[in-house]
């Protein structure tokens, strides 16, 4: 199976490991990600003002491009997933027809078909956990993993319709499939502080530390996420505080590890908080 794929800006730079492991692991899991031939930034954050059409142009262009490649567009970055899915839903909202026309005036590419924005995790789930389990070559060996979804994967609930908004489980199911022990915790979908890290760092750190602490309370040894900003915030807040450090991975790194990617392919050198000693200790490297 081949899917049109939108990596987004961050996955081309600071979250290269999220992207690379995602592509390589896909091949091992039995599907292929075909990057859109050319694409632009989705805007990174969705604008909710009812009159703000300019902010819609970027994501809509991405969707138009995708429509030429296929019916479903796969994303990996939580922010891109959120923005593209919301822009897509607004594009088709009733009462938005006139605005839709105005936006499309700024989009050169025609829409070949309606596009559905899906997340990599949803593709995995469709493949079936059993199918993936069969391809596991290195079991996580009961590693206690907390799956952290953050805000962007689940809210707004009525648009994203991704899992249970307070207690999403897809990533947990994946971790169980890979031989890990998913840890339910109370902050799966709480905020890490997001972009406040730029101008209100202490606030963002406090948010992130709460997430880590709650995961530890429930027994987590490691955390996985699918958002570059969550990954960064959770790690750097711990580094700034400097005590009891819990490694934070992209789920694609752990997926890649279990599906047998080479250590060099897993991009651990890009994690701020070097997870290699931890993985060695757990017998996973």
């Amino acid at each position, binding site marked *: 199976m081949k899917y049109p794929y939108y990596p987004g800006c961050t996955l081309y730079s600071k979250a290269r490991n999220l992207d690379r492991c995602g592509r390589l692991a896909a091949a091992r899991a039995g599907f292929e990600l075909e990057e859109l031939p050319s694409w632009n930034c989705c805007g990174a954050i969705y604008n909710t003002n009812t009159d703000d059409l300019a902010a819609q142009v970027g994501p809509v262009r991405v969707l138009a491009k995708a429509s030429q490649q296929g019916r479903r567009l796969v994303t990996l970055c939580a922010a891109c997933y959120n923005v593209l899915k919301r822009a897509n839903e607004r594009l088709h909202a009733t009462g938005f027809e006139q605005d839709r026309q105005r936006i499309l005036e700024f989009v050169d590419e025609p829409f070949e078909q309606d596009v559905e924005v899906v997340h990599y995790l949803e593709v995995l789930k469709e493949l079936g956990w059993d199918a993936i389990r069969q391809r596991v070559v290195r079991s996580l060996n009961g590693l206690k993993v907390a799956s952290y979804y953050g805000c962007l994967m689940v809210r707004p609930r009525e648009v994203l319709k991704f899992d249970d908004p*307070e207690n999403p489980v897809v990533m947990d199911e994946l971790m169980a499939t890979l031989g890990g022990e998913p840890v*339910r915790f*109370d902050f799966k979908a709480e905020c890490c502080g997001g972009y406040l890290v730029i101008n209100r760092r202490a606030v963002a750190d406090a948010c992130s530390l709460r997430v880590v602490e*709650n995961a530890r309370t429930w027994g987590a040894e490691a955390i996985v996420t699918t958002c570059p900003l969550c990954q960064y915030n959770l790690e750097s807040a711990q580094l700034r505080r400097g005590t009891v450090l819990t490694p934070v991975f992209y789920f694609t790194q752990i997926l890649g590890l279990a599906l047998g990617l080479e250590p060099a392919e897993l991009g651990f050198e890009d994690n701020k908080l070097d997870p290699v000693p931890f993985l060695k200790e757990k017998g996973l490297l």
Partner: protein
Amino acid sequence: MKRRIGVFVCHCGINIAGVVKVPELVERAKNIPGVVTALDYVYCCSDPGQRLIRETIQKERLEGIVVACCSPNLHEATFRKAAAEAGLNPYLCEIANIREQCSWVTSDRDAATEKAEGIVRTMVAKVSHDQPLVRLGVPIVKRALVVGAGIAGIQAALDIANAGYEVVLVEKEPSIGGHMAQLSETFPTLDCSQCILTPKTVEAGRHPKIRLLTYSEVAEVSGFVGNFRVKIRQKPRYVDLDACTGCGICLEKCPVRVESVFDRNLTRRRAIYRLFPQAVPNKVVIDAQHCRQLQGKKCGVCAKVCPAQAIRYDDQERIVEEEVGAIVLATGYELFDSRRLGAYGLGVVPDVIDSLAFERILSASGPFAGEVRRPSDGRVPKRVVFVQCAGSRDSNQGVPYCSKICCMYTAKHALLYRHRVHDGEAVVCYIDVRTPGKGFEEFYRRATDEGVQYLRGKVSKIFRRGDRVVVWAADTLAGKKLEIEADMVVLASAVVPNPDGVALARRLKIPVDGWGFLSEAHPKLRPVETLTAGFFLCGCGQGPKDIPETVAQASGAAAKVLAMFGQSELYHEPVTAVVDEEICVGCGNCERTCAYEAVRVDPHRGKAVVQAVMCEGCGACSVACPAGAINLKNFTKQSLTEMVDV
């Protein structure tokens, strides 16, 4: 020969006369063919008004009258009675509704007068064709069925039985008492729930006029008001009720342990069990799902130890048939499943429990014999947060209505907690505190006076930190977010109708509201009747309420049943469907259309047959009949044509 018809125009004070030009209407009415007299009066429904109608009927030798006034819902009966007193057949009196359908919906006086005349003409046309009719008499079976034996059903059953009539009391659980049996002490007086309930359950259990069917459900109801046939399904209990002495030896020997729903999963019971020690009937029951023997494994311990030899592993479901004249629905409530409020952590964060679980903890027969301890480790909690509106008043994740009782039972919970844990801190997070009941405000004040801390703000999130429970709350009076670390959290979950009650109502086509609560026939004036004749309601199945209100409503429903039983027979409106057998082709459209199952096609003769006492006179069949063979009395094709032709 045209009938001699009289028209009476009511002013209804200024309700009608303020808009419709009454004198003009009277003059116009006089010109309608057949009308021999037209009069107006300020309040026709008053005594002098009725006298005027009676006297005019006699003086003018009227053969039909039209009263132009308010809706027939209100005064049709009044004027028909007046007509009857003057010697006129009451069905030759018709109402022209010129208030709800005319003066109340416009301020244009000319248009209103015009329309009023049209309405009057229509009804004159109708009354010209009306036939004199006689009410149908129906005998009454003077026995009642009460469904649900919580305090509502028990009270209704006792009131009816004590008036001398037989009652069949059906309860789906193995014993009676409903939720009141789970409660500890009751607001606002703090008397012990079991102590005030047991005399009632015992009386109901022993009453010679009450046939108690526990572990039973209503399977089917047929017939009509005064004459229902009911099939009741008795679930297999696997214990012979007559033989079992309730000694309880089996309860100690059964090897299986299952979470006790009665104790809100805080304790475990055996596969053979009794809901609680004071249960009525005080007999055990086997939970077939968990019984080893009944699941085909080797066991049979209870049969071996039972000194009365009461165990019956081969017990079967039984159907009991009963005939009753009235049915009281008292199916009660359940708590909203607050696990659906994902952020509140119920069921996952240790020591977050719901309000009924806390009642069990407070109860002397509960998991800790009345001591307040927390479920996770049995420690005495030193700070407890009570979360109000867990699901209530929440159009997003819960139910939009107010559950009415939670403010009071939460005040009670906080107070009782403080009585048992003197150095404990009780914090109540609330949106509003609502205390509109006798002694309620005083009770709430007592809670605050005795040191319960009230914080105004709805809780957003509850999570675990080490062995404590953290609550994210707010103090909206100070405009601040708050984080409270506690040892235990109690959720005041919303009250929802018992799902089995809702399912039953749906099966019996008894109207319920959008949330499944039974709808009353009129929200103010007929609060204990349903819209289906012969069905009455009481208790929390109709809406959330406390015990005093439940009991009052139950006695109200019983009084309605008794008022019916006090009559020698029931009367049924004679405006029913009649079949013209010459035209009827037996296609069955009427049968499929009728919501009351009042018409059936006789398979032998191939003709539709109406059972008049079941016909509600809605007229749906006459619309559905392609041959025009079925008509409502006094709504013939001819009169309808003339009514719209005026």
